[in-house]
């Protein structure tokens, strides 16, 4: 018997709701609030039970139509690379600074998506980020830390 992906997702949601319910029971409330009609864990407990109920229904009820997705049309490789580039971007944004990390993120994303026109890639990364930073830092007054630009004396 083949179990559909939607049923597997519903099962995962059931387990997640169970975990949520367990965690909701662990919430420590004030002793005077323990027997109150409503305290900090009441709503989450209701949600946990309701989540399990709905997921359970989805698992039990038969599916009218197949909702399987044809896997061969999905581009896992490029998506995964893009996610990894984003994670790397998030990891280096503080240490490398906004300007260089963002520009490198943009250039590498363009490249991995198949772009090879370097001049256009450059124009839509370094100068583009510089203009963006000017708008954010200079006009909107949002302070952006950038250790490299600071060391170069570009930013105060």
């Amino acid at each position, binding site marked *: 018997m083949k179990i559909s*992906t*939607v049923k597997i*997702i519903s099962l995962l*949601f059931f387990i997640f*709701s169970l975990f*949520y319910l367990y965690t*909701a029971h662990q*919430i*420590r*409330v*004030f002793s005077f*609030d323990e027997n*109150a*009609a*409503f*305290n*900090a864990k*009441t*709503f*989450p407990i209701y*949600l946990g039970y*309701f*989540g399990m109920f*709905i*997921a359970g*229904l*989805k698992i039990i*009820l038969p599916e*009218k139509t197949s*909702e399987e*997705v044809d896997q061969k*049309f*999905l*581009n*896992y490789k*490029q*998506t995964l690379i*893009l*996610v990894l580039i*984003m*994670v790397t*971007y*998030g*990891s280096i*944004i*503080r240490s490398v600074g906004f300007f260089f990390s*963002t520009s490198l*993120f*943009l250039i590498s*994303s*363009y490249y991995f*998506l*198949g*772009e090879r026109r370097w001049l256009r890639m450059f124009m*839509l990364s370094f100068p583009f980020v510089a203009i*963006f930073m000017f708008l*954010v830092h200079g006009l*909107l007054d*949002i302070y*952006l830390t950038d250790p490299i630009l600071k060391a170069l004396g570009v930013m105060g």
Partner: protein
Amino acid sequence: MIEGILLGLKTALSFTNLLMVMLGCIMGTVIGMLPGLGPMTAIALMIPITYGFDPSTGLILMAGVYYGAVFGGSTSSILINAPGVPGTVATTFDGYPMAQQGKAGKALAIAAYSSFSGGTIAAIFLLIAAPTLSKVSLAFRSPDYFALMVLGLTAVSAFSAKGQFLKAIMMVVLGLMLATVGQDSLSDIPRFIFNSMSLSDGISFILIAMAMFAMSEALMIIFKGKDPSKATKSISLSELGSIRLDKEERNKMLKTIPRSSVIGFLIGVLPGAGATIASFLAYGMERNFVKKEEKEKFGKGSVHGLAAPETANNAACSGAFVPLLTLGIPGSGTTAVMLGALLAFGIQPGPTLYMTNPEVFWSVIMSMYIGMVILLILNLPLIPYIARLLAVPRNYLVPLILFFSVAGIYLISFNTFDIFLMIGLAVLACGLRLYNFPMPPLILAFVLGGMMEENLRRSLLISDGSFNFLWDRPLTAIILGGTILLVSWQIYKSFKK
């Protein structure tokens, strides 16, 4: 009311706010035009920008983006048969055949005039309905609000995805669960933070909106191997034909616009319904209204068939503001995003909004008129140029959307944990969207979660822990009755299949 209108006009006509409406309309049109990116993504991308503004200006900008995105969606529907959002699907039925007949300019003009008229007429309805309903809604108590939120979430789940009611309810539960992360609003007791300081303030609404819409949409373009710019190669974007309408076409529009505006507005007011249902309903009703020979033209480039959904979807956008401004309860995913932004500004929409923040209340309403005029003036002559943006390749489009999402959240919190959380949620949203789990119920539930818990808390404390509050007041019972009817209808429909 006259004082309010004048106050609204004064605020909306200030130089900054006029500039914001204009910017909002242009940016909304550009983002909404790109297939797959709708008003919700457009507004989500705008939220970080509005943080430095005062609430009126921020909301005016977002309202402009909203209309602009709806109009932009129509453009891609007409030109390349790729509706940016479900609300413009009905536009393709007659808009695209018109474009194929070499009358793309005319189709875009009909869409622009219809959108303008629908939006303007609905804004007049809003002007009358909102203050009146605000006064009525002062009678609402906590149990009524709780029941209304349950109804709103059920309705959004019922209408957001056809035949996917249980999936939508699962998304509602997930949204409510995410909303409980952080400190309890009354006792400040930490919940679900797993000893992480980054979670102690809860998950930011902007983070959820960006992850679930902007970022996941961009990832989906790559994941599914879609290239929105490919469709543009089939039609010339520089030769769209004349945008002038003849007398017969104008007369046809004059008949269609009033009735479609009324339908659109009324559907927009209902929780959960919105532009998609409004446009389909208006299209269907218009087909019944017209003469037999006109009926046969439907689907082949009918003026009535194009004007009806375009009028209705814009009227529904204005209608959706009624529950948001008067009850503080959004009826759709897009207005939920706007509610989140309002709350971030420290403004609680609801029946007292027009007393506590009259400038916000009236300026939003008045900016709708101004927005519609600007949209018409800007878009008609600029259509051939704006349409060329459809050719932006995904190699640039996707990284730029991802950049705006990451930068948007980083510039607010300066916390890398938020970036990782956003990436994780976006990947999760991608997987869920692949199997048709709808996202609007999740965002609506996330925004309403805090208010829902608060109203349930008050109701239960007043009734000493008894659930009698659900039927003690006639209003609560009627609203819950509506919810039960809606759920029963969904169950009936699933068994009928």
